[in-house]
């Protein structure tokens, strides 16, 4: 029965893969081999087995893909069950990747999902190089940026020409409440995550003086307890764990006291949880729509049956249903995908190293998390600051209060920046504004 059954089972897919049509890509050749390629040879990597990930696996498996790797470091929680439909109550605490893979492999015979219960950073270039297409359904911007950087580092350039066969397309989906987006990234060829970093607004933060001295909103009270009161009173001898109800209870009770003290209304338990855990609202329907759109794009890329989305689609179904597609532009001097070092304007020659670090973290087009800097000073590679390794941090800490000039950096100096948002170090070029250089020369 095997092949006959498969033949009948895939009769829907076969119609679009074995027949030609007026809207197909010119290089599309109708053939029964395409379906076989999807099920046996086309290797996909799905990153994230959450709201989008569960949908992606279902969609891809039913679009004929049979070789799927799945990577996710998370375990299943109760609050996942309103949308992550491959998980049940009994699975709470188990690996998302493992349970999801098992579910798909059982429900759809012929589909092989291989789970990886780990961080994306645990895998090396050789691992990522094996895939035809990478699909990301992540809620973390840092992780998105990291995988983006990884795929770019796999590109081969020969005499400045990009070797097209080294391009691994990335399909990326994101949702928030009733809004979402799907995009197609051809690393090195079209806009990448870093090219459009300003699409991700930095997280809302409240000025310290507001939360300490002039609170007006319930959020201000919660932030106060979180950043001032918790470290001071240290009620459980550990940092805040948003998943520990005892911790949330403590913060709720303390922020409520503060709200009462200042006559601030509207503080609820749900709000406390939301602020402490930075919760993004989520619903099954939006995840379904965005994952479906991503899966259609994977299918198009793998089969050439029609042109890809070029290259960004947004969805909003709050007021009717609104979708909009446009071409996000590749940035000439993109930190990740251009070959040109980004110039950083330095307007003040007394700028200290710590100020430079702050710039790297605060600028919307950089948004780094824990940058470490090395530079070539007088022909020697020198680590100026590194936060992530405690022993080096200690040794380089005193550099923070030195000015760039004192550290031997000049107009045109190149610095190498390492950060958790990228698997590679990024080269940047310091550009002291003319007035600064003038002063230098004086």
């Amino acid at each position, binding site marked *: 029965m095997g092949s006959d059954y498969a033949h*009948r*089972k*895939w*009769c*829907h*897919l076969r*119609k*679009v893969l074995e*027949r*030609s*049509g007026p*809207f197909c890509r010119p290089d599309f050749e109708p053939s029964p081999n395409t379906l076989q390629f999807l099920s046996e040879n086309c290797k996909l990597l799905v990153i994230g087995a959450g709201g989008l990930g569960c*949908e992606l696996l*279902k969609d891809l498996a*039913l*679009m004929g893909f049979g070789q799927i790797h799945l990577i996710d470091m998370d375990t299943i929680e*109760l*609050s996942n*069950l*309103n*949308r992550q*439909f491959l998980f049940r109550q009994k699975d709470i605490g188990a690996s998302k990747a493992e349970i999801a893979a098992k579910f798909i492999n059982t*429900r759809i*015979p012929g589909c092989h999902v291989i789970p990886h219960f780990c961080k994306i950073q645990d895998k090396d270039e050789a691992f990522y190089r094996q895939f035809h297409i990478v699909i990301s359904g992540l809620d973390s911007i840092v992780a998105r940026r990291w995988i983006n950087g990884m795929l770019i580092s796999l590109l081969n350039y020969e005499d400045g020409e990009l070797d097209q066969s080294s391009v691994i397309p990335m399909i990326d989906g994101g949702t928030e409440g*009733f809004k979402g987006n799907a995009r197609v990234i051809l690393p090195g060829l079209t806009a990448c995550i870093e090219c459009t970093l300003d699409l991700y607004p930095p997280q809302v933060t409240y000025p310290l003086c507001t939360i300490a*001295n002039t609170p*007006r*909103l319930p959020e201000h009270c919660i932030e106060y307890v979180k950043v001032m009161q918790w470290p001071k009173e240290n009620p459980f001898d550990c940092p805040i764990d948003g998943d520990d*109800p005892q911790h949330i*209870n403590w913060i*709720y*009770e303390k922020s409520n*006291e503060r709200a*009462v003290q200042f*006559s601030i209304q509207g503080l609820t*338990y749900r709000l406390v949880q939301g602020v402490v855990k930075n*919760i*993004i*609202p*989520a*619903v*099954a*329907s939006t*995840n*379904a*729509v965005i*994952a*479906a*759109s991503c899966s*259609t794009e994977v*299918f198009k890329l793998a089969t050439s049956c*029609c*042109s890809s*989305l070029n290259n960004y689609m947004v969805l909003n*179904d*709050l*007021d*009717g249903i609104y*979708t909009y*597609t446009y071409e996000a532009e590749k940035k000439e001097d993109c930190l990740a995908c251009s070959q040109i070092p980004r110039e950083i304007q330095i307007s003040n020659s007394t700028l200290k190293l710590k100020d430079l670090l702050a710039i790297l973290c605060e600028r919307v087009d950089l948004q780094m998390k824990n940058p470490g800097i090395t530079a070539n000073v007088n022909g020697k590679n020198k680590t100026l600051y590194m936060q992530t390794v405690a022993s080096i941090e200690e040794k380089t800490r005193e550099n923070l209060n030195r000015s760039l000039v004192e550290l031997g950096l000049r107009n045109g100096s190149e610095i190498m920046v390492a950060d958790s948002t990228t698997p590679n170090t990024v080269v940047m070029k310091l550009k002291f504004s003319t007035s600064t250089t003038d002063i230098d020369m004086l």
Partner: protein
Amino acid sequence: MASPSPKSPEQSERTRKYDRQLRLWGDHGQAALEGAHVCLINATGLGTEILKSLVLPGIGAFTIIDSKKISDDDIGANFFLDSESVGKSRAEIATQVLLELNSDVRGDYVDEGPEQILSNSPDFFNNFTVVITTALPEKSLIRLSKILWDLDIPLIVCRSLGFIAYMRVQTREHTVIETHPDNETPDLRLDNPFETLKNHFDSINLDELDLKDHTHVPYVVILYKYLEKWISENGDVPKNYKEKQQLRDMIRSGIRKDEHNNPIDEENFEEAIKAVNTSVGRYEVPPSVMEVLNDDCCINLTAKSKPFWIIAKAVKDFMENDGSNSLPLKGAVPDMTADTEKYISLQQVYHKQAAADAEAVWRRTVHLLRQIGRPSDAITEKDVKLFCRHASNIYIQRGSCIADEYDPKTVDASEMTQSLENPESMMVYYVVLRGIEKFQVEYNSYPGEFDDHVEPDIVKLKACISKLLMEWGCGPLAKDDYVHEFCRYGGSELHSVSAFLGGLAAQETIKFITNQCKPIHNTFIYDAVTSNSASFFI
């Protein structure tokens, strides 16, 4: 410490499970969802995708109507049928597998075709909250559409064909209180402050404040002071760009100076300058809201009027009698630079007035209920408060009956004809889909369903479309490539296209159930080839 520390509330399992969506539609939205019972006709891949996104968030109950036995090709397009179930009832298996998703949900099925049910038990549909169909043939669709139109139950018709998806909603009248607008303008009433607000403003004298207080006055107060001055000098609020610019300059001149006569950094003044654009105009009830309040249903209440209309009438009476032609006050004040005491006291003034307005509307609601002979608990005070808070964004949608679209005598083809003149319009998909329905009636198959019939079916489908266009009084369709493309699909269902529409159709269903957010009005088309979509009113 003797502080009366409030105890943390016990979090129920349900609250924790649904946390991420409760943040979108609230506990009252969830309660509406849990009280709803939807009906799905035909458990196709598209059908189960729709139900999946309703079962997961916890819809009360669903019923599946489907007489089909599961075939091999069902397995390839439908995630909620397992490979061992070939030959069994599609309604039964889909119900079983969907129920595994959420133990809070009840589900049952009828192993009969919609045609049988429509003929044998037309009352069957009376108690559903929403009815959803997929792959429903034209004849049954027309009958069902008439029944549900008369029952005033929303109907959502969905199709997924190759790379194209289509959705049409039918509802007589749908009212929305919480539209969840993306940007809400604050309701400040600076041009004509209510008494307590005016007293509050009058109690503050900017010139007498020391510097610390001066930099911590809420911008609303600053804006009022300068607007008041402007009105006393010019007789009216600033109307055009030039006048607004002058008002901005006036405000800027109020910023305190340092010892070198340079203006100091006063963020609250900057906020006031920024707010000139949105917050100094004459108060006006939005025209869309006026339309609702002047609607016949609002003016002429009957014993059968929906709560929405009764509260709307109470709001109208409030405006004309106690509210000096303004809607009940929203009562929300945006965050702004200010010290706690000044901000909270201002917030209290708005809060209290909003509560008083809602109270007045509530009294009028009770009065109206008595007048039309309804029990006074038919509407709760909570309902009235919710309505008042969102009064400036209320919305009503009136639809059209699908059956009329299919009857040459009643169809209004002007929208179709006009759209077809635009070469970019996605209306062409609607026309071809309607042609395919005609084709199905005539030939009992999809065009291109059989490999050796593709070419002849293209000719036949073109004939079906021409016939349809003639009924509409339209010229021929010069889009043969679209006809060809649909024959290539041969009635196939691509899972990712169905999943896309499935999610959207589920969300439209939730909009009807919760009365939150505006539904589509009334036809939606998605083309997965270009990733474009469009909505029309037909």
